[in-house]
């Protein structure tokens, strides 16, 4: 299987503070990879660098065999932990933007998910709760037929009742050639979906292993291993 992500010796600093230190890993097509680590470990910085939001870094970062640029942005569907839509916009406007800029956006899928999650197309985003805004962003991101989905804490502000729907949505809406890199603190809720786990600590990858191997060799769930590694 070809790799959709190839990262070699990636380092990133904010001034004198080193946030990512010599990180190397690959993600194959069709894999669902969990990115785990405590606050400040470098998860968000890694995802932002891959998404093209942070430009000054060293090392080799290739997505779909290309350096970060127009092509990688067209194949990545990125969900940041921040809410990024203008507060005066509506879900309808958001659909219009995604439709205009992403050739792989499926408008019908987005509208159906809005109905399933009881979100109005005409309500101003500024009047939505944070959870509703996060749901809307997730809907937009998952309505694309992207090669790589990068989801930063997609369940953070979402109520437990909606989490299963969202997880099912994530699994249902990606095809076997797409890959997912998902960062979360809520390991217990999501560990059933992962093929592989990446543990990051102080900007360094401390574990990069298949979930089945973790379970067989260590006799632990990812949640239990996480607690042991970061205790």
């Amino acid at each position, binding site marked *: 299987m070809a790799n959709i992500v190839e990262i070699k010796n990636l380092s990133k600093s904010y001034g004198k503070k080193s946030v990512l230190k010599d990180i190397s890993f690959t993600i194959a097509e069709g894999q669902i990879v969990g990115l785990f680590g405590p606050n400040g470990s470098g998860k968000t910085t890694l995802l932002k660098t891959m998404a093209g939001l942070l430009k000054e870094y060293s090392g080799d970062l290739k997505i779909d065999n290309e350096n970060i640029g127009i092509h990688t*942005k067209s194949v990545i569907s990125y969900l940041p932990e921040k809410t990024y839509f203008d507060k005066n916009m509506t879900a309808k406007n958001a659909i219009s933007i995604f439709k205009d800029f992403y050739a792989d956006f499926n408008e019908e899928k987005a509208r159906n998910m809005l109905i399933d999650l009881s979100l109005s197309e005409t309500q101003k985003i500024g009047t939505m709760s944070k959870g509703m805004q996060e749901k809307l962003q997730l809907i937009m991101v998952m309505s694309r037929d992207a090669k790589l989905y990068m989801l930063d804490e997609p369940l953070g502000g979402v109520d437990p009742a909606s989490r299963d729907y969202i997880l099912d949505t994530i699994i249902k809406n990606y095809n076997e050639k797409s890959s997912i890199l998902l960062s979360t603190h809520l390991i217990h809720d999501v560990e059933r979906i992962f093929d592989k786990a990446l543990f990051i600590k102080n900007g360094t990858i401390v574990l990069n292993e298949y979930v089945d191997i973790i379970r067989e060799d260590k006799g632990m769930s990812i949640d239990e291993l996480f607690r042991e590694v970061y205790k």
Partner: protein
Amino acid sequence: MFFKLLKYDLKSIYKSILIIDIVMILACGLTLGTANTRFKNDIILGILGMTTSFIIIGAIVVYFYTILKRYSKSIYGNEGYLLNTLPVKPWEIVLSKIVSAIIMGILTLLCGILCIFIFFMSVNIHISDIIYLFNYYGYNIFLSLLLFGFMCVLATIVEIIKIYAVISIAHISIFDRFRVIFGIVLYFIIMQLESLFIEFSFGNILYNFDNLTELTQASELLSSFNMYNIASIIYCIVMGIIWYFISVTVINKKLYVK
């Protein structure tokens, strides 16, 4: 993709600018209406005139605040998470911001000119008087003033592009902790450097322009004025291109969306 970006940029700024432009025209209309009624009196006209002036200044402030805030917020703020992950080129992002600012700026300028004409009508200065004035001094002065007007519009556009570049530089990660102060200081340093450069590079033209009283013939006066305007237009074009490329380069090489 550029035109799509331009469409969304215009959508995000037009409302607040259009509202203040309409208020500006209505205020001028009210002044004109009052001037032509039996309630006309100097105090009321004075108050209306003052109010209209404040609204015109307000329109300019709202215009600049809206476009500069949009630039900063949509590229380097939370909305930057969307804009900078769209499959578009950095030059398209910056150019769409500049063109949308120019379009809304021209709209505000036209509304402002309309207001000035309305105000002239309120105080009984007729357009025909102004045309007569131009005819009296000859056609050349009209062309000179037109050139001067174009230079002023171009200088304003370049000033906007310059502030865009300053905002971009201030958002480089090494300036993160003091970006607002750094941006303001940088802007004033650039202003000082520019005035020094102008003084040394085409100071001779400026000297002639500053000493108009020493020029006895009207034609010399006009040609000096025109030379100054032409030199300023060339300078504005060169600086506009430089500031534009600085903004694009920051997004291309130094982007840091917090």
